């Protein structure tokens, strides 16, 4: 009899190994997306006209089905993790760019004016004032991007078992072990909730300056 956590050997991973793989395939693209979004968002803040085309392009990219991406990418990156992660990174832009733009724009004009008047140059203003104040908005974006990425990784199953926990769905079918499908769904959901909770914790730690519920003036 095989148990809930006994993973078929064709996947070459233990359950924990699949969890680690899944997290890596889901979160590395979000990190890459963040690194790409920060300068793009700053350009959108600096040049207002730039935002509309950027938003349009990221939305269109988001609308491209991942299968289509895979077909395009397989010629270049083959049946590898990269082929799964590149579309995920592109998808994360549609959430992260607007989140960062909104966050940076939410800095009150008098705060920015005061910063300028105190002799903070543009770089200091960005790093010391705009970015820290945008943290709550950025983390809100990261939460959506991370959770959606975690659920999307499973589709990697379609290109040579690169779907981490998603591969269990396929194995459930071929080995007639429905509990593997349950395992896949439950573990993926748990990972999503866990990562989301972690991000909330990070935000709490990074923003002691945010009004908390029940805080008195």
């Amino acid at each position, binding site marked *: 009899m095989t148990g809930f956590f006994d993973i078929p050997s064709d996947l070459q991973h233990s359950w924990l190994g699949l969890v680690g793989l899944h997290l890596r395939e889901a979160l590395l693209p979000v990190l890459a997306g963040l690194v790409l979004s920060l300068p793009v968002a700053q350009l959108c803040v600096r040049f207002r006209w730039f935002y509309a085309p950027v938003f349009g392009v990221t939305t269109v990219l988001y609308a491209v089905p991942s299968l289509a991406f895979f077909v395009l990418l397989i010629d270049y990156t083959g049946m590898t993790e990269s082929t799964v992660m590149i579309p995920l990174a592109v998808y994360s832009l549609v959430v992260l760019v607007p989140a960062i733009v909104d966050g940076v724009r939410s800095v009150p004009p008098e705060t920015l004016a005061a910063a300028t008047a105190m002799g903070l140059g543009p770089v200091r203003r960005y790093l010391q004032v705009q970015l820290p104040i945008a943290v709550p908005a950025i983390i809100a974006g990261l939460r959506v991007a991370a959770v959606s990425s975690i659920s999307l990784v499973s589709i990697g199953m379609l290109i040579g078992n690169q779907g981490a926990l998603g591969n269990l769905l396929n194995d459930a079918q071929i080995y007639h072990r429905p509990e593997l499908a349950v395992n896949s769904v439950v573990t993926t959901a748990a990972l999503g909730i866990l990562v989301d909770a972690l991000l909330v914790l990070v935000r709490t730690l990074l923003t002691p300056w*945010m009004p908390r519920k029940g805080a008195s003036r």
Partner: protein
Amino acid sequence: MNAGRARASELLKPPPSRLSGNGQAPPNRRKRGVLIRIESVTKRYPDGTVAVDGLSLEIPDGAITVLVGPSGCGKTTTLRMVNRMVEPTEGRILLDGEDIRQRPVNTLRRSMGYVIQNAGLFQHRTILDNIATVPRLLGWGRRKARARAAELMERVGLDASLGKRYPYQLSGGQQQRVGVARALAADPPVLLMDEPFSAVDPVVRKGLQDELLRIQDELGKTIVFVTHDIDEAVKLGTMVAVLRTGGRLAQFAPPAELLSAPADAFVEDFLGADRGIRRLSFFPSAGLALETGPVVPIDADAARLGSHDGAPYLLVTDADGRPLGWGEPGRLTAGAVEREHLLPYGRPFVPGSDSLRTALDGSVLSPTGWAVAVDGEGRTVGVVSQQVIGEAIRAAHSRLADGAAGDAADAGAAR
């Protein structure tokens, strides 16, 4: 609070207006601020809007100069040209004789404190770190900068325990005090204030204004203060520049002169209806002849109640001399004065530190037409009638008229 009133009475003396007349600071003047000279400055935007039009202004050192005017008069633009947040299209601005464009822009800005409406605090930094911003930019160590910040919190009247808090945990008035402390942190010679007290309620605003006057008495900075509130301008300004829409200077004068001799219909209109009454703020009440005959303690005997020199009312005080209210001599019974039947005595004034305006207000508020004078502890020192206050006002006017004639001659010679 007393500092403001004491300073207001100083304004009756001519020096500030003389200073504006010929633009030369006396050589023995304490030199803690710097002189700012705005020379035919114009700001024209690409779309053709003219925010400031050929403005020339000599901002005296060590004093508060208020730029006041309706919205669209270019007062904030003018202020922001001083620290180069806005660059003038024409003209130049000199700081102690040096063109401000000679210095690197961020160095210039760090030498000028800046206070803005709603404080503009960094919401993500503690109060101490907010105040320490400019010292840190100037390369001070963290410890030294924080120590300086703590010192400034005390100076602006904030409890040291607030230092570790974040801006959202403070009231609007407290935040504004932090804004002032932050501007003062690196001890800049110049302070630029852009409607700093507009967003707080009137009671808090009055407290902040009094605090600013007190701090200025200690520090003697060159302060440029922008407001749309003429009362604030008159209260705070050593000199007041009234700007009209389109960025042109309407009048530049000490507040007392502004109230007594507005340059034109626009200034007069902007000053509002009761400028005659408000002008009384600049007349001291020290010279009023106080009467003590009509003042009786609550435990006065019949003889004391009888000897009132024919005064229509007697002011009854408690055992410590604090006023309780007015009573008619015939209706007061020795040993049985009923407090609740006494007439209200209005608001007492303190001779010396309060102005004739406060004294007149006190007499108008009192149903008897007499104002009550008290000392610093609130003990009655005498009473004075509306007639006597009226005579004092007329006397002050004629004294000022004599002085103004001399001033006008000076100013004429300078031009």
